[in-house]
């Protein structure tokens, strides 16, 4: 038993270590070959772009840990991002601003609950259940704005994406807090243990009295809420909301970050810090390719290869 434990530990270290090593190599490569890589601006650009992947990735990690998947995160980002400007433009002032942050996140969480309800109440596979909102969700956001770009100038709302605190963007602080809290919850709380147990063996978890249905609902709701927050951040960074673009392809980035970070895609093991590292690798890889003149389209092909490779390595 002890031997199995240590071997398992060693494997985990290898996976996590491998991801860290890959990240270190990427940084080293950029330090040597990318002009002005070591500047505050580069750091800020990369951090700004990676936050939404990390925040959504944390939610995705929790869902995947229960043995599920959520394809609807990008669409939920679009919904939340569309609602916010509609709210603070209809309701000026402090209350409107507060509502424009709270309500969209609540709506996204409700959508997550809906996903969880389909999965637990009807026994529909998570891929199919979340496919419904993956299709319809972005459509709803587009219908709300008729597909038009909503531009706005709202200094209060801009803090979320453009504000600074102690030299770092506000959203980066948000991301760090979310990562720390999620990691603490997973490792130190009963709820966290229940999540992993549900994904490990749902039947056994149920028989030992773990409320698997409620755990799953909560996890999908959390994933929805985090996607909603990410959608707001994107909108705040751009000072405009584009329902056609907000969160497009995010499901793949979030799943990739989770997989690269060492979370088992079949459930039962979650690595929040791994997801952070995975997201950093994906972001830095894209930055490196673009900084060296590789067209965005080619970077897409490279990303696809990296995702497949990462998931494959993780299985070894």
């Amino acid at each position, binding site marked *: 038993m002890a031997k199995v434990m240590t071997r398992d530990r060693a494997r985990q270290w290898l996976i996590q270590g491998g991801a860290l090593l890959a990240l270190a190599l990427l940084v080293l490569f950029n330090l040597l070959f990318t002009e002005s890589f070591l500047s505050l601006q580069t750091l800020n650009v990369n951090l700004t772009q990676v936050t939404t992947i990390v925040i959504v990735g944390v939610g995705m990690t929790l869902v995947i840990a229960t043995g599920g*998947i959520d394809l609807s995160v990008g669409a939920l980002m679009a919904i939340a991002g569309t609602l916010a400007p509609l709210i603070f433009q209809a309701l000026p002032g402090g209350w409107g601003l507060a509502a424009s942050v709270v309500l969209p996140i609540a709506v996204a969480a409700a959508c997550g609950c809906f996903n969880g309800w*389909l999965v637990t109440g*009807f*026994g*529909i*596979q998570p*891929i*199919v*259940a979340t*496919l*419904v*909102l*993956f*299709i*319809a*969700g*972005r*459509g*709803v956001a*587009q*219908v709300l704005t*008729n*597909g038009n770009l909503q531009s706005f100038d709202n200094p209060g709302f801009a803090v979320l994406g453009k504000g600074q605190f102690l030299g770092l963007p506000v959203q980066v602080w948000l991301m760090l807090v979310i990562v720390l809290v999620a990691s603490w919850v997973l490792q130190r709380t009963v709820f966290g243990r229940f999540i992993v147990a549900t994904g490990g063996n749902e039947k056994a978890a149920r028989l030992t009295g773990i409320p698997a249905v409620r755990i799953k609902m909560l996890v999908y709701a959390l994933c929805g809420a985090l996607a909603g927050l990410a959608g707001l951040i994107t909108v705040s960074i751009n000072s405009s909301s584009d329902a056609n673009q907000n969160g497009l*392809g995010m*499901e*793949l980035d979030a*799943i990739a970050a989770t*997989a690269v970070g060492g979370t088992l*895609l079949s459930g039962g093991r979650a690595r929040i810090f791994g997801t952070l590292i995975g997201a950093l690798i994906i972001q830095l890889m894209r930055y490196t390719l673009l900084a060296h003149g590789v*067209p*965005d*389209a*080619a*970077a*897409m*092909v490279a*990303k*696809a*290869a990296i*995702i*497949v490779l990462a*998931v*494959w390595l993780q*299985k070894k």
Partner: protein
Amino acid sequence: MMKNKELFGVSAVVVLLFLFGALRYENFFSAYNLLEFGRYNTMFALISIGMAFVIMTGGIDLSVGTVAALGSVVSALLSPHSALGAIVAGTLAGTACGLVNGLVITRMRIQPFIATLAMTLAAHGLALLLANNQAVSPSYETGFTEFGQGDWLGIPVPMWVLLVILVLAGVAHVYTAFGRHTLAIGGSEEAAKLMGLNVNHKLLLVYVLSGTLAGLAGVFLAAQGSGQPNEGMGWDLFAISAVVVGGTLLSGGAGSIAATMVGVVLLGLIFNLLNFENGLGQFTLSSYWQSVVRGVFLLIVVVIQARLLKKRTH
């Protein structure tokens, strides 16, 4: 028995929608509308046939949309040289994508949805690279566009092609070992393996088939308009919805090609009717409603299927 009842229900909805359209809109039941309906929806029918086989094995192919886009770009680029060459190359581009999907799934043992989601990205990227980020006009001089826009004996060429493929797919599904093995793998991959089936070989074939049909769908897209590197978003979902509406279980192990076609007609009809409704001008529904309607539709069907499945197992 249950399966027939489901198919009967969906077919009844199709007939009702046809009746509704014929009574409400003046030109709905015209030969022109019906033939153009068939011409346009051939693309979706093709990817749905491929998707039906994939889903029967218990897998999923999320890449058919962008693979079709890649096929459309490849064939449009080659159309000035040779019409036949363009058709073959566009289709083979899809075959190649399907082959990669199949190899990643069977050799690297990566879940179909991740492998094909990654392919979505790769095919889109390749299409953009080849097309230089813009739509590619096909050549009218080599006769390539006739493949999409032409008629033969009064029926659109795409519908003839679809008819041939439908017959082949139906025969393959019902009468050949390939069809039965596909269902066996979907029923239980473990059991299929123990029976001595070469599961990997069959899975590979299924994804190659899906990719090939997606490539061919792309050829039609190019021949009917242009090579579109950014097209194909949501096509995968159309195909999945059509297959599910047709009663093929998403858990694998059951399904029929004919029922999938009923699903394609049903989904296509909804959009055709929406267009006519907009034409009446009493109220306008933007094209964005399409995805909402699609999603709601998928939801209803999936929930009904889940309930039936529960009843059957109890």
